[in-house]
């Protein structure tokens, strides 16, 4: 059986969990490992429970899905607790604490937060306040995870976030962002705009990005920053956000593309809508799709090339069935992610530093 079949099965199951009641048992033994590999087994488990299809499933499949849920529930619990600790740590600073990604989805009670595996907390604060925020977190037991001086410099000079902080006892990780893309990257959305549009949560002191910005940040994360490593999980986030906001928030669809234009994020939005529609059949209004195409569609061969790369990234092949094509796709994606993240001179410097470090234990390290 080829990898493509796994993918079709998995995407089909996520699009229409009700059809799982009729899935034959041999297909389950492809579907469950594929979902696990893509990091979305807990999400699938959430969907089957929510749609009430569990009772119709083969007992062993039902058991494996039941086994996948507690971990996602634990992660949501950790996120809630860590957010409360961070808010507490920053309470004296009078800084607007904006939650990003998983923390935002879970604390805002969005469907995107259910059955999601991720316990790292991502927050956005104004760049001018970041030193105070870091000090306040250090005072509460968070410690920098990247101790190598080059890593520290890399984060502080070129990145969009502090080096990740980990709590010394709870081992939880917080990423403090001052914007959503690396300073060295090709696009620079204005973080002031994001902060200004943020919306307060019912819980005092906590904010999340506006609906359009949540979508655009997720889109950016998947298609502009990185090697599509988050793959299917990120695409499912986007799908859940689009469906939920499209239904609940009037004006969401009409504001999405103009907002992307104002932040310079039309390309990742185009890709997000393209792949949500294609792979997950997300209902995107025709007018929004046409506007996104017009604003963000890259020149001809690129979308087709991306089709192949994204398809491979959303559901990785099994290691024991990996083809040369899959290997090539990984290399291309890795190169693409770095290309988007920094200009060529910096990329050359960065990779050289990283490579040297593997061979020469330098003085800096000894000091650190």
């Amino acid at each position, binding site marked *: 059986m080829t990898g493509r079949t796994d993918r079709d099965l998995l995407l089909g199951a996520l699009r229409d969990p009700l059809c799982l009641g009729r899935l034959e048992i041999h297909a*389950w033994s492809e579907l469950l490992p594929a979902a696990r590999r893509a990091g979305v087994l807990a999400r699938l488990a959430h969907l089957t429970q929510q749609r009430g299809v569990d009772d119709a499933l083969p007992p*062993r499949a039902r058991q494996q899905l039941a*086994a996948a*849920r*507690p971990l996602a529930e*634990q992660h949501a619990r950790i996120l809630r607790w860590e957010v409360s600790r961070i808010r507490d740590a920053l309470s004296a600073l009078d800084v607007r604490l904006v939650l990003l990604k998983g923390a935002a989805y879970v604390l805002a009670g969005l469907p995107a937060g259910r059955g999601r595996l991720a316990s790292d907390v991502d927050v956005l604060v104004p760049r001018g306040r970041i030193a105070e925020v870091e000090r306040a977190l250090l005072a509460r037991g968070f410690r920098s995870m990247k101790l190598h001086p080059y890593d520290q410099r890399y984060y502080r000079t070129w990145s969009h976030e502090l080096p990740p902080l980990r709590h010394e006892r709870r081992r939880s990780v917080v990423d403090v962002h001052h914007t959503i893309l690396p300073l060295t990257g090709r696009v620079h959305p204005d973080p002031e705009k994001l902060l200004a549009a943020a919306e307060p949560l019912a819980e005092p002191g906590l904010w999340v990005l506006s609906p359009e910005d949540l979508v655009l940040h997720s889109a950016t994360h998947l298609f502009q920053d990185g090697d599509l490593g988050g793959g299917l999980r990120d695409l499912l986030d986007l799908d859940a956000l689009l469906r939920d906001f499209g239904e609940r928030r009037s004006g969401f669809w009409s504001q999405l593309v103009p907002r992307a234009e104002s932040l310079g994020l039309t390309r990742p939005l185009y890709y997000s809508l393209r792949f949500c529609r294609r792979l997950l059949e997300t209902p995107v209004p025709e007018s929004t799709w046409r506007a996104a195409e017009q604003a963000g569609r890259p020149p001809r061969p690129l979308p087709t090339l991306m089709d192949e790369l994204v398809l491979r990234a959303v559901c990785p092949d*099994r290691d*024991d069935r990996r083809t040369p094509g899959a290997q090539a796709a990984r290399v291309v994606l890795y190169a693409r992610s770095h290309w988007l993240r920094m200009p060529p001179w910096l990329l050359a410097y960065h990779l050289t530093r990283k490579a040297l470090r593997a061979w020469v234990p330098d003085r800096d390290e000894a000091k650190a």
Partner: protein
Amino acid sequence: MSRVRELTAPAIADRLRGPGLALDLGPVVARLGTTLPELLDPVRLLYGGFPIADHEPLVDFEVRIEPGRMLRRWIARQGVAFVDGQRAFAPFPRAQALPMLEWAVNWCTFTRPNQYLLLHSAVVERHGRCLLLPGKPGSGKSTLTAGLVLSGWRLLSDEVAVVPPGAHHVLPVPRPVGLKDASIQAIERFDAGAVIGPRTPGTRKGTVAHLRPPDDSVARRHEPAGPAWIVFPRFEAGAVTALRPISRPEAFLRVAHESFNYSVLGDVGFETLAEIVDRCSCYAMRYGDLATAIEALDDLVTDRSSRPAIAGSEAPR
């Protein structure tokens, strides 16, 4: 359902090399596969009593142990493990393929079934009720378990107590019992008839070997047992064997701390563990030799089983 030892060696080899050998391990069904010829005999020996789960097209996990590729295969002579087709764990010296197989199956058994509370504890049963032996590595837990199993106790597990929330009982996962270094000789001395697999020297844990689980324990792998005692063993060379009652709160905290997924389950984990500890009398046991330790535990359960089985009413607080 035919058992592994009822197949011929070539038939087992064909399965291991090809589609894999699906085994019913109790709460989980695993599929094992390998192209390494040296694993054939150990698998036949240690898993001989297990039924082949050919009727289960859907397994809970698949473990394959294979030679590395290229340099890893010919120069470094390493093996690699695959779980569900994904490379898992660091490559290992090929001579350690058997401990690696056992480790990979254990790892899946301890990390996957989060629908259960998974306590890090050996579990053995006598007179229908089971004894939990939680203990850190080096506490002598496995040696004691092996000794008890060779003295007529039923093996539920030498590593994990599988507790379904709300059920008040422990599910068996009988598996080969891992023995290290001096324990191997200790068990051989204890029972000359013990069936022990090949020794693998030089692993992270020293020399390891595996005791085959008794056929009866394997046959009763779907028969849960209610917990009645929790005993924390500690081996000390030369010590006089002694059982000391400990409080339930202390036992609770120690077991929770050593659990595989107590914190994953949240309040469900708390409730489930509380139900278990409430039904048990709890002890710490220091022991210096296997025979007196087994005698002490036999006395403990015989004493208890002669009284009405009212959970905990006379147990130390």
